[in-house]
């Protein structure tokens, strides 16, 4: 007995590896097909139980949120646009964004550069051209002074040209940033950058982020409404108000500027509202089953859109109908019901702001003043563009201010980049009309309203208005600042996609422009 017991022990000490292998082999040999099948099914059962348990277990973030935890934006699946409070007490509760597609010339509107005017017609210094890429400028262009006279106005004494006689009455309400900068010199990517924080397709627009973060109070209207002013769709396309990787329920809803604002809102003849309701209820039921089965958030979007459309039948038509405004008000906006115009849209924007729409995006077009055609000339088309926006914007500011809405509405005006201090010389030749090429190095935008210091100018460009010499503001800085006004730390308003906490300000550090905060 003792002998037989000690021997394997000895062996074990001498050749442990072999013994382990032996044991394993013995175990495997003892395993019959029957054993295998039994443990296999047991294993499958355990796996299944595991998934079941995971399904019914409370999600990890349901625990008491710690200060480290990311902000929770989860909502009831049937109500993806429900209101969520901002991270911090916000100054701005809604945004009206006036985008001047094509990039208006800052040198004809806000940038007073007497030195440039003095040097008008002279050859552009080589230092301006070294290492620069232009859309069209070739060879050595000539410097081009401002085409319009400038003057100081308002108590703030800010400079403005004679092209915006109505807006200039509000100069003390405006916070003008003259040191905006972008890294894109073509329209589509530059517009994408301004709207989505990224020059490539597939990112969520500013409005979508805001809707995602805050939801919308008025569930009978889209929370993010886009109005074009006739002309053409901006070069960046509908991606400018797309939701990118965010669920598409947060994308902007483009409304028509003339005729019915939203097509097919009316019920067809012989379909009554109750009948429509019961039809939608059935569709809803099917969609909900689909969602329960596949869990695709786009199904939720679809349910929400059906419901929104049903509720909009009542309210959208009313909100968009500027005929309901008195003649005197329409006259102040220079609005003519029935046509597609920026003026009409400004009036609609005010009506939407009153109705609690979270993000109102207005586009105007045709600001690409290259000078290659009359419509793009600084002395022809540009003049018309100015007159199309000047009075309506002033009236909008008037109304917002008078009704107290400017207190919690953030108004932003701007294009996607600036224009050069040189006259464009496409193909190296003097062009028929006067124009300027794209300048990503410096451009001007203005903000007004909620939480923004009124009557100030931020940032300085050089004497030619060509490059920034003080306080540059990147697009991401602007975005961070706007999100701050809306009550968010731009790092915290994020969405997990492709393994990243995606955010509007992307990956480079963004600075909140504290200098312009009231």
């Amino acid at each position: 007995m003792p002998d037989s017991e000690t021997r394997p022990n000895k062996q074990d000490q001498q050749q442990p590896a072999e013994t382990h292998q032996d044991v394993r082999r013995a175990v495997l040999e003892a395993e019959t097909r029957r054993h295998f099948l039994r443990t296999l099914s047991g294993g499958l059962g355990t796996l299944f139980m595991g998934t079941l348990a995971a399904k019914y277990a409370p999600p990890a973030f349901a625990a008491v949120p710690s200060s480290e935890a990311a902000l929770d934006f989860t909502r009831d699946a049937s109500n993806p646009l429900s209101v969520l409070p901002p991270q911090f007490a916000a100054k701005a509760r809604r945004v009206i964004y006036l985008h001047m597609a094509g990039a208006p010339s800052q040198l004809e509107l806000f940038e007073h550069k007497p030195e440039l005017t003095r040097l008008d017609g002279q050859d552009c210094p080589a230092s301006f051209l070294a290492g620069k890429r232009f859309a069209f400028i070739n060879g050595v262009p000539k410097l081009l002074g401002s085409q319009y006279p400038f003057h100081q106005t308002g108590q703030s004494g800010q400079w403005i040209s004679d092209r915006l006689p109505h807006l200039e009455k509000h100069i003390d309400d405006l916070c003008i940033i003259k040191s905006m900068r972008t890294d894109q010199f073509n329209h589509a990517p530059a517009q994408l950058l301004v709207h989505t924080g990224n020059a490539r397709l597939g990112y969520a627009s500013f409005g979508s982020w805001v809707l995602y973060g805050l939801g919308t109070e008025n569930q009978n209207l889209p929370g993010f409404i886009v109005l074009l002013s006739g002309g053409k769709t901006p070069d960046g396309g509908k991606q400018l108000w797309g939701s990118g990787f965010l669920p598409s329920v947060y994308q902007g809803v483009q409304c028509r500027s003339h005729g019915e604002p939203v097509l097919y809102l009316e019920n067809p003849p012989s379909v009554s509202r109750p009948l429509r309701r019961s039809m939608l209820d059935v569709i809803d039921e099917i969609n909900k089953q689909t969602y329960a089965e596949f869990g695709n958030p786009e199904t939720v979007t679809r349910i929400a859109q059906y419901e929104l459309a049903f509720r909009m039948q009542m309210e959208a038509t009313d909100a968009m109908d500027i005929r309901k405004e008195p003649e005197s008000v329409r006259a102040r906006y220079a609005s003519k019901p029935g046509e597609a115009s920026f003026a009409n849209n400004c009036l609609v924007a005010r009506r939407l702001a009153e109705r609690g729409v979270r993000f109102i995006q207005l586009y105007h077009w045709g600001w690409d003043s290259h000078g290659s055609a009359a419509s793009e000339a600084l002395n022809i088309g540009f003049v018309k563009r100015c007159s199309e926006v000047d009075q309506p914007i002033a009236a909008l500011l008037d109304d917002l201010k008078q009704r107290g809405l400017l207190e919690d509405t953030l108004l932003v005006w701007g294009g996607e980049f600036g224009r050069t201090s040189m006259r464009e010389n496409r193909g190296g030749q003097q062009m028929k009309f006067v124009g300027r090429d794209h300048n990503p190095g410096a451009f001007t935008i203005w903000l007004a309203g909620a939480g923004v210091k009124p009557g100030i100018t931020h940032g300085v460009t050089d004497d030619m208005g060509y490059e920034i010499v003080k306080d540059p503001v990147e697009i991401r800085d602007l975005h961070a600042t706007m999100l701050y006004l809306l009550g968010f730390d731009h790092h915290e308003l994020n969405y997990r996609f492709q393994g990243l906490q995606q955010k509007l300000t992307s990956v480079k550090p963004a600075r909140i422009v504290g200098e312009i905060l009231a």
Partner: protein
Amino acid sequence: MTPSLDRLSQRNRFALLALTPILLLFILVIAFPPDGSERAQWAQFIGRFHPIAVHLPIAFILLVPVLELAGRNSRFVYLRPSADFVLGLATVSAILAASLGWCLARSGAYSGPLMTQHMWSGVWLATMCLLCWVLRGRLTGGEFVYSIALALTVGLMTWTGYRGGQLSQGEDHLTEFMPGALRKLLMMSAETRIVSPPSTATFYGARIHPIFEQHCFTCHSANKHKSNLRLDSYASLMRGGKHGMVIKPGNIQSSELFRRITLPATDDDYMPKENKKPLSAAEVKLIELWIAADASATLPLEAIKDAPSPTTAAAEVTFEKVDFAAVAKERAGLAPAVAQLQKRFPNLLDYESRASADLMFNASLLGEKFEDADLASLAPVADHIVIADFSRTAITDHSAAAIAAMKRLRSLRLVHTKITDATVHSLSRLDQLESLNIFGTRTTPAVLPIVAGLPKLRHLYAGETTIRADAPLPAALKDKVLF
């Protein structure tokens, strides 16, 4: 006689036993006074229990006169003998509390006159307790001396506790919210005492002192001088702390203060400590420029040309961490009422932010469907509503009281409602109101004096009312009324 003799010697033994730690305490306090340096972890850890332990002697000492006095009544005569035991407990706990106090002060970098007073009164309190105890046992018929000693002990305890409270809660922790009338009665000055700040015409006074005030005073001023360093006056700043001078005029490299504020935030020596807000780049620059310009107290403000302007100094936006647990606690009381109202008014009532328990309510989207009765239903959360919009609803003057009950309102919108002057009149107590919007109502110029009396008002929106833009306005409303 033997038992009583025994008892006496027992008392003597206790007295001697208690005297030893008291003497030790005196030695500690004299030989190792708190000097504003931070020390051993253990001592500091134990010391942190001082604020808890102090409540024991307070309770025991207060109990003694209660027992003594109640015991005079024949019905409670049995209470009197226990006073002896309680006094003994008071002595032991006072010694314990004082020892812990020394640990805290010695190792936790405390110093300053307030600190010293509190420390000595604590040590003497322990001594007095023992003395009372001894007197109570010894004196036959001489109760008088004992009662005097006891009264003194209670008085000393009150004083010690008060000074201790001042140390931990701030100098005015008891009187901070004392109503003005009571202040007058007690002949206290109506305003809080303020150390005269340095002249704002100098660079030091206008630009440097405010930085210290904002970032450093919690640990380095009159109340607390950690590391023996005070930054609340030019003289003490230049005197420096226990490591010597912290500012070397004209020499940035060897100025300890500048070194500390420019270290990486993770460094042990980095200031400000303990997750306090770091100085902004502009503030650091200001201090650098000032030291380089010989750190003078009299240098005029304009002397340093390229100093960052105050706006840039304030422009760096930082976010404070939100303590969600604290927010949840704050909300706990009203959460059920909020949830109920949110069901009734979906998407229209919510917290102002994730970091607050204040509410916003927007009834304007309900239009005519929202009536006085609906507004009345907000009563349970009324004093949490800070922003309210009742524009275009069907509310009338019947809601005046309900609106006035929203005492913390900052913004109130009544655009195109049927309210009249009566409602505005009832708002006179809304002392937080910053924005009042009566656009398109039937209000008249009679409301202007009421509105003018609102202390925080910044905007009155009076368009499309019978108030005319060219009408004379009260001086308080100048530039505040928009038409």
